[in-house]
């Protein structure tokens, strides 16, 4: 397998992850990190982003945890990172040409800024962007309320088509993130916490046969479903639109480098932003406790295409790839809802047919009253489900003192309605509209149960 190509004879692929904490943001020249405060050179960053011919205007703003601020409509959230591995950049295949099958994944070090994110907003692309409240009741539902945000507000030229608009805003986020990372993380840094993550070795890789074999610990695999319904519901792996791909095994820590990025304008609550992909908690937990509590034997990414033929092919192949790891059990995470429920059930039943146990992560759409069936498809084998909450649940969000972006779009967001504006300026809106509130990678604590 070419992606497991040995690097200087070293196996398995190991990544040292160094995390530098950012505790505040400010604007000043040059872009630098000083005592935990990140300063951003406004002109340098805006002129970089303006180099895209579709961009008409760029505005930068800062939002801090606890402030009375609403960021809306949020397109993507990204954590700035810098790869210290020569020839293996962050956002491989996105900001630079990169072929995972040609080069293999190399061991080495990655540095990230933790505590801050780059958040892209802009006039609405689809109807499915969301909001982040930095304080108030909405803050409890999203991990992003605890982050320092550099908000990049992009206006595109009039007449820009929707797909170009989406791509322009998407790329602006990666460029801004990469700019910050290169500016402050390139030079050696002493402070920061770090950990080493050791990836599983796959059947067929050098060194696999002698290390393979059971040691009495449960063997766990991970099937990572990515939203690929198309029409602005897209995800990219190494720059390739995942709906055009077949399921494949990945080196789990590829996600740290931004190998999977979001091009999604799907409902805010359960789309995986690029931040979610970079920090996939299932992968991290499976790696961190690998060898002590279980053996993490592998990760497969698969798509959620809309045609029945695609669903059947992808689920069959995904199940076979998972089975190639000979796991005892597999975690299956979903992205999006409705149509992907069918993919989830096919993946579940086909994996169980291999005699492998499954646990599924899904959110629910049980109606505002919670009385409807939560999923659009079911299967008797789906007997172990973790619920990440009913996204139709209505929450009242009081007005914020400051709005970054444009809150006039709130009635148009998926989860909003023309009746959601209350006389006192509050909005009664479904959780669906809050970015990441019912995330199906399992970041949050919200769940649902029968009353």
């Amino acid at each position, binding site marked *: 397998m070419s992606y497991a190509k040995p690097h200087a004879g070293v196996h398995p692929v190991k990544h040292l992850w160094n995390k530098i904490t950012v505790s505040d943001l400010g604007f000043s020249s040059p872009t630098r990190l000083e005592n935990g405060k990140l300063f951003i050179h406004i002109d340098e960053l805006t002129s970089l982003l303006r180099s895209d011919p579709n961009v008409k205007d760029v505005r930068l703003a800062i939002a801090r945890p606890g402030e009375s601020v609403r960021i809306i409509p949020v397109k993507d959230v990204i954590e700035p990172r810098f790869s210290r591995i020569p020839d293996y950049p962050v956002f491989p295949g996105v900001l630079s040409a990169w072929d995972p099958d040609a080069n293999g994944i190399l061991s080495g070090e990655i540095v990230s800024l933790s505590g801050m994110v780059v958040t892209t907003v802009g006039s609405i692309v689809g109807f499915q962007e969301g909001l982040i409240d930095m304080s108030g009741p909405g803050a*409890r539902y999203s991990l992003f309320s605890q982050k320092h945000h550099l908000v990049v507000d992009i206006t595109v030229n009039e007449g820009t088509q929707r797909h170009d608009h989406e791509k322009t805003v998407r790329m602006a986020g990666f460029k801004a993130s990469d700019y910050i990372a290169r500016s402050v993380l390139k030079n050696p840094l002493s402070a920061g916490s770090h950990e080493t993550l050791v990836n599983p070795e796959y059947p067929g890789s050098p060194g696999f046969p002698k290390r393979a074999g059971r040691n009495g610990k*449960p063997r*766990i695999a991970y099937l990572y479903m990515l939203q690929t319904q198309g029409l602005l519901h897209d995800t990219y792996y190494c720059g390739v639109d995942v709906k055009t791909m077949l399921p494949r095994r990945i080196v789990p820590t590829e996600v740290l480098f931004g190998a999977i990025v979001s091009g999604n304008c799907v409902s805010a609550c359960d789309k995986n932003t690029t931040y979610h992909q970079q920090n996939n*908690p*299932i992968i991290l*937990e*499976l790696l961190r406790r690998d060898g002590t*509590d*279980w053996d993490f034997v592998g990760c497969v990414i698969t798509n959620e295409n809309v045609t029945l033929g695609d669903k059947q092919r992808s689920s069959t192949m995904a199940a076979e790839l998972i089975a190639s790891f000979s796991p*005892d*059990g*597999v*975690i299956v*995470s979903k992205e999006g809802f409705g149509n992907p429920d069918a993919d989830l059930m096919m993946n579940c039943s086909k994996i169980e047919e291999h005699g492998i*146990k*499954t*646990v599924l*992560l*899904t959110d*629910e759409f*049980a109606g505002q*009253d*919670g*009385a409807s*069936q*939560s*999923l659009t498809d*079911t*299967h*008797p084998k*789906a*007997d*172990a*489900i*973790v*619920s*990440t*909450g*009913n996204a139709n*649940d209505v929450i009242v969000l009081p007005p914020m003192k400051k709005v970054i972006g444009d809150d006039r779009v709130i009635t148009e967001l998926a989860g909003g309605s023309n009746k959601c504006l209350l006389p006192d300026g509050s909005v009664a809106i479904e*959780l669906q509209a809050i970015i990441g509130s019912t*995330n*199906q*990678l*399992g*970041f*949050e*604590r*919200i*769940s*649902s*149960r*029968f*009353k």
Partner: protein
Amino acid sequence: MAEASPSRKYRVVHYVNQFFGGVGGEEKADCEPFTIEGPQGPGRLLEKRFREGNAEVEIVATIVCGDSYFADHQEKVLRELIPVIRGHHPDLVIAGPAFNAGRYGMACGAICSSLEPLGIPAITAMYKENPGLDQYRKTVLIVESTDTVSGMEDAVRKMVRLGIKRLRGEEIAFPKAEGCFEQGIRKNYFHEEPAYRRAIDMLLRKINGEPFETEYPIPFFDRVEPRPALADLKGVTIALVTSGGIVPTGNPDHIESSSASKYGKYPLEGLTTVDAKTHQSAHGGYDNTYANEDPNRVLPIDMMRKLEKTLGFKVHPWYYATVGNGTSVDNARKFAKEIAVELIRDGVQAVILTST
């Protein structure tokens, strides 16, 4: 709040059927509704337990109604009883416990469900297979009881505990924790652990064969693939089975008009037709005027006899009938299994299922 006014006496109205109201058993099930002042039957136990729970409760009235009378005149009874109950200005209404008495459970559910929208807290208790449960669980707090009256003490204890909370205006966020049936409504809450950790924990338990509880029980629908059509009916024995409730006149097996607990097996030998004199519909879920006028409309034996000659099949000499009206899936599955065993034993190769 009770703490703020310890001297406050709560007014409770209690609904019971003819049996617990002291009128009589099944033979008195046609008894019309009437009111007794003060507690009656299980009401005395309720009042006693409330007081032991430091809640000054007085059962101001006991409303009694026969189970059949209620079932046959539900709209009329409710129209009359709701104003009567309101006239007693109750802080709480308790119906039952109904245990596994189907019509009683339906009546308790109907009463509670009518009162809740009026702002009158109302609770009941029944057994998990009582048809009143499926009908009313979403709108009414129903305490789980045993199937027979032997569980009275336990049911009353749980009803009193729940009743005190409702008298004090406490929100019942998760009825299961109060000994009630889940209402089938999904409600969000914050778990102590993030979802990814719960998923891994659940998987480890599943792998190790330890018990685990899914957070979303999948509703399972029994999908039956239709069989391919028979190419040739010659020599084939065909049976008629209906959930449309066509039974011999007088409904000899007393199949319930709703939430059937049984089915019947009746002869077709020598019959060329069924008519209004010999057969009727026992079904309470559709307007059965036309079925009673000509029962062939639901049990098409007349047409079967005609086709029998031209197509050369044989009509099985027995038909099976039940009432598919609010009948639980569990009951329906049980009937089907028993009927299928007999049909196969008797050499039947095809079945025409008629429903309404």
